């Protein structure tokens, strides 16, 4: 199982240097068998992650309905966003009656990490047509990104590795949407004492720890964590925005000082 666990996000210097060369498009004609094999390999590889996906999706579905959205709106939000933390943040802000612009700005901030994932993954996908790249972008998640980078790094799968990425993404998507729908429809019947919402924190903790690979990463995380607590009084989840920016600045500063 450990062998299938997602690998770490790329080192912080991966982006700073010139990006790796794009994978060459397959020379041999596409083989349906190897495409299916890659797709199923992706499906299987993501299985250990799903144990966290199910309760997280359930919590997101409950939160949407709890915020005053109808179950249909909660499910629609999930289909449009396909992002647990964006869905939770939006639900909180809708519940608080926040202006639309503020709500979308908060969704943007929690989605900023996708910019980095997108930049890191794009060299591998560059040779694919847009009809592949757009759906793979839509399906990209924290876990899907980590597993995709690992698949391209380990050299297996040849020119069919985008099928692996698709297998991971589709499997996560189906599981996520079913879990959100269950939460939105069956909602508030889970006792609060189960503390299922803690799965959300733990899911991101499982991503955070391997993301810290250098002193500069640690500085970014530490400053962001401290600032988010200090700024907790700010309205509209602005603390998250301020803390993220402060953390990024801290990381850049440490990296620059280290270089000199």
């Amino acid at each position, binding site marked *: *199982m*450990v062998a299938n*666990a997602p690998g770490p996000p790329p080192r912080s210097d991966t*982006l700073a240097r010139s990006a790796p060369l794009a994978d060459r498009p397959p020379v041999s004609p596409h083989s349906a068998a190897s495409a299916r094999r890659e797709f199923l390999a992706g499906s299987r590889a993501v299985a250990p992650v799903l144990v*966290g996906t199910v309760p997280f999706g359930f919590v997101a579905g409950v939160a949407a309905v709890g915020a005053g*959205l109808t179950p249909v709106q909660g499910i629609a939000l999930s289909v*449009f966003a396909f992002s647990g*933390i*964006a*869905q939770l943040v939006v639900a909180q802000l*809708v519940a608080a009656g926040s202006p*639309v612009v503020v*709500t*979308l700005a908060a*969704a943007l901030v*929690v*989605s900023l*990490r*996708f*910019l980095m*994932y*997108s*930049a890191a*993954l*794009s060299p591998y996908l*560059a040779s694919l047509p847009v009809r592949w*790249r*757009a759906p*793979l*972008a*839509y399906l990209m998640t924290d876990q899907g990104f980590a597993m995709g980078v690992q698949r391209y790094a380990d050299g297996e799968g040849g020119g069919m590795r985008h099928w692996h990425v698709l297998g991971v993404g589709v499997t996560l998507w189906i599981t996520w949407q079913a879990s959100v729908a269950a939460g939105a429809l069956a909602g508030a019947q889970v006792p609060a004492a189960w*503390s299922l919402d*803690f799965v959300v*924190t*733990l*899911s991101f*903790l*499982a*991503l*955070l*720890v*391997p993301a810290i690979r250098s002193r500069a*990463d*640690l500085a*970014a*995380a*530490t*400053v*962001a*964590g401290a600032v*988010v*607590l200090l700024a907790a009084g700010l309205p509209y989840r602005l*603390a*998250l925005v301020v803390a*993220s*920016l402060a*953390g*990024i600045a*801290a*990381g850049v500063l440490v990296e620059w000082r280290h270089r000199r």
Partner: protein
Amino acid sequence: MTEWIVIVGTGVVTFLTRASFIVFADPRRFPHGMRVALAFVPAAVLAAIVVPGLVSPSGAIDLGLGNPRWIAGLAAIAIALRVRNPLAIIVAGMATLWALQGLAR
């Protein structure tokens, strides 16, 4: 109506960030400074999401024994430093939380 604007708008925001480089732009064309900053986005944003969930689950900072979540978080971090499997990390964190909640009762 407002709800639907938020729903579709969130979809647009999340898709555009995901598609930014995969579909629209070449990261090599972007300034070096921006790429350096981008590299710290995951550590910063993820920490800003995780820390309140551990330290101030009900709003105020609580590092006492009345808040088992930071202790469960430490257990999960200890596991996360050894294995990458998210399943093991989540199970360790939830098991610790439930055990502490059971003890408190």
